[in-house]
């Protein structure tokens, strides 16, 4: 039982990783779709990315080398992930709630990763961690951990308030939406109280995570009260970590594909190019749409049906 929180943590990280990988694979294995880009496309070179131009603005565009600016994508994607730029621009009331919620989560993740990293660094180069770097990391973790929890709780409370009071949002809000926000508030709230009450130097959290990351877990120490409190916090946070990618909150993965595979996917299919085989495969899919004008029988393919003489 002493290692129950550790077991839960490993399971949670495992579920998180497997669910994320499964989600990524699901998107990667999606069949090719027709182009459906939306401008501005961030990887268009120079000014085009700003005003929403494309290579189709050039005559004989297929004879010219296609320029794709990865830096341009990063310039849009990074601020979007970190600061929720679209929400800032189009829905300020939501942004003042959603931004702290998301940014707080990033800070908590950052603090967790830094605690794990510090443990590994401490093992590898103990002298380094004993000096200024160790102190700096410790202070950063304190700031990100406590600040992130507070920020996120503030954001989640704001989101909850808005979901419940704004008539437009309320009609679209499900029991799960409320549950998810409450889950965050309770788990993060517990973690914050834990920090304030019994772990203000983060030694308990850091010690636990060091055991996890070095695969040498040590049982939690302290009074029964302290052990129970820390265990409850870890278990609740663990369940939250495992839960997130199983819900629509996995949109943090979907968003990448929404941008790269759909919104910004303007790759042209050139004669004799690498896409022809994939297109050929799609055109030979059997069709079973039932409307009469489609003419499908479950065997005829897209190519058969699209090329047959059309009769009313």
């Amino acid at each position: 039982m002493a290692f129950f929180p550790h077991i839960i943590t490993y399971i949670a990280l495992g579920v998180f990783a497997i669910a994320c990988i499964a989600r990524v694979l699901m998107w990667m294995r999606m069949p090719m779709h027709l182009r459906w880009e939306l401008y501005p496309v961030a990887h268009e070179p120079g000014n085009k990315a700003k005003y929403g131009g494309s290579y189709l603005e050039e005559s004989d565009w297929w004879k010219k080398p296609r320029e794709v600016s990865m830096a341009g994508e990063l310039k849009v994607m990074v601020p979007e992930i970190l600061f929720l730029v679209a929400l800032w621009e189009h829905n300020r009331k939501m942004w003042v709630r959603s931004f702290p919620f998301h940014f707080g989560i990033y800070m908590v993740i950052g603090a967790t990763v830094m605690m794990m990293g510090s443990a590994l660094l401490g093992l590898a180069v103990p002298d380094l961690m004993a000096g200024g770097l160790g102190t700096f990391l410790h202070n950063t973790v304190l700031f990100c951990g406590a600040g992130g929890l507070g920020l996120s709780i503030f954001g989640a409370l704001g989101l909850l308030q808005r979901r419940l009071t704004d008539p437009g949002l309320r009609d679209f809000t499900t029991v799960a939406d409320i549950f998810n926000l409450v889950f965050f508030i309770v788990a993060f709230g517990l973690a914050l109280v834990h920090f304030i009450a019994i772990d203000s130097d983060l030694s308990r959290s850091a010690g636990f995570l060091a055991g996890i990351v070095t695969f040498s877990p040590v049982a939690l120490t302290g009074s029964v009260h302290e052990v129970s409190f820390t265990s409850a916090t870890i278990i609740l946070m663990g369940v939250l970590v495992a839960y997130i990618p199983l819900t629509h909150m996995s949109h943090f993965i979907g968003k990448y594909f929404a941008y790269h595979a759909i919104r910004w996917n303007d790759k042209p299919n050139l004669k004799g190019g690498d896409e022809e085989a994939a297109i050929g495969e799609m055109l030979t899919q059997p069709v079973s749409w039932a409307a009469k004008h489609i003419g499908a029988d479950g065997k005829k393919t897209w190519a058969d049906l699209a090329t047959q003489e059309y009769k009313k």
Partner: protein
Amino acid sequence: MNAPLIRDISKGDGPLVHIVNEDQVPLPPPFDKLEDEPRIPPLSDQVKQRFECNLDDTIVVNIPKAKSPAEEEELVNKFLSGLRKSFTKENNWTFLMPLVMSMEHCARCQTCNDACHIYEESGKNPLYRPTYRSEVLRRIYYKYVKEESTWVHGDVDLNWKTVSRLIELAYRCNLCRRCAQTCPIGADNALIARELRKIASQEMGIFTRELHQDGSELQLTVGSSTGMNSLVVKDNVEFIEEDTADLTGLDPEKTKIPWDKQGAEILLIHNAGEIMAWPENVGSFATLFNAAGLDWTLSSDLAAYDGINYGVFYDDMQTARTLLLHAEAARRLKVKKIVLGECGHAHKALTIIGDKILTGDMNTPRESCMPILRDIAKSGKIKWDKSRNDFPVTLHDPCNLVRLMGVNAPQREALKEVVPENRFREMTPHGVNNYCCGGGSGFAIMSGNNFADFRHHFYGRRKFRQILEAFQDEPMDKEHPKYVCAPCSNCKGQIRDIIKYYDAFEKAGIYYGGLVELMVNAMADVKPGYIDFEWH
């Protein structure tokens, strides 16, 4: 104003909302009195008896009333079967990934709503939110197809009212994708509206007459949704050649329109609506292409003289069939490239949608006319006299061309060469952030029942507002004509209809036309007065 909730879609018998003038925001002067605006006429009793009229005060799909509960059940089951097929690779590889993305990842934050001109100009009625129809479909999908908990995904009842209203509601969206641009997640409510139209068409055989029977079917069988076969179109084009020579005062050789020229550099495909309604557009293209010395041709093959592809608005199979006819004409003529005339959805169909359908020798490169027009304008081959265009000009950005294709700068660069700088003004917003004209997704050709009134008064209201705002610094009367440059056939039709509806030429001097007409009007070699403001 009635403000329906999501679950109301399955309830009650009558329309869910009634939009009246008083719900709307007044337009800029001289149209700023709501009480002076035309009122939308009600649907006739006969229409109400025959068709499902249970969404709002208009109908466009004309869904016949189900005759019995058994028929209702059958239709609901058909809808569900179509919804299931939408999530299979075999039947919907074309849009499976974007559909799953939009169904599963919407955070229901409602950010996209304010981007929608239809929602905004309804006085913000929740029924017209981009998210309303998507959320109903999402709930149906999770509850009835995936059989997951309604606690997680929300609840809605599925009955014939839900289905018939949802199909009609799919035609309260211009598919302009302005809402999708604002979504922080990358979800796309326009795509969902289009998928709904597809389920109705591809599974249930329910579509609008304008897009299907009088649209794609006519084009696939006769050659054009205008009903013109190749003989008629050639006859009409002959008249255009002659008229253009008269109007421009140019040698008839310079306004000649070549047909079926093997091995030409360019196969130009117009929207055939231009040939019928705006022959000066077709004549202007000929004048410019000839003056620039381009090697070009039209094709008289089935459907190849009409760039229309109404399938893109409701049906993937009809889209593919039409695309293939266009591509086949280019293959047969062995042209080097296809150039699309001033028609936004034809642009998108052949360059963007068709990109992942046409392979091998069917994959003749395709491009917009805008870069060519820009290149012609700047080439020095034609002498321009900008003073011929000495009137206020603004530019409408067709969504298909700009937001959905990224062709944004060339038309502006061309305008710069032929319009005096101080006469041009942009609309607010413009470019990729433009508003749809209100005719998008096929609405421009839909006028049955009282739908035209809705189209002018409601869906096109934001565009009309923008046009009026763009010209507010000018005297708003007929004596000071103003030109709305709308380089897209459907947009032009919609803007023409709004102008007529509000009598905006007589009251404010608002006139409209394409880009090529402005260019020819500025040709120093052409007789002055090519654009005739009295013809409107």
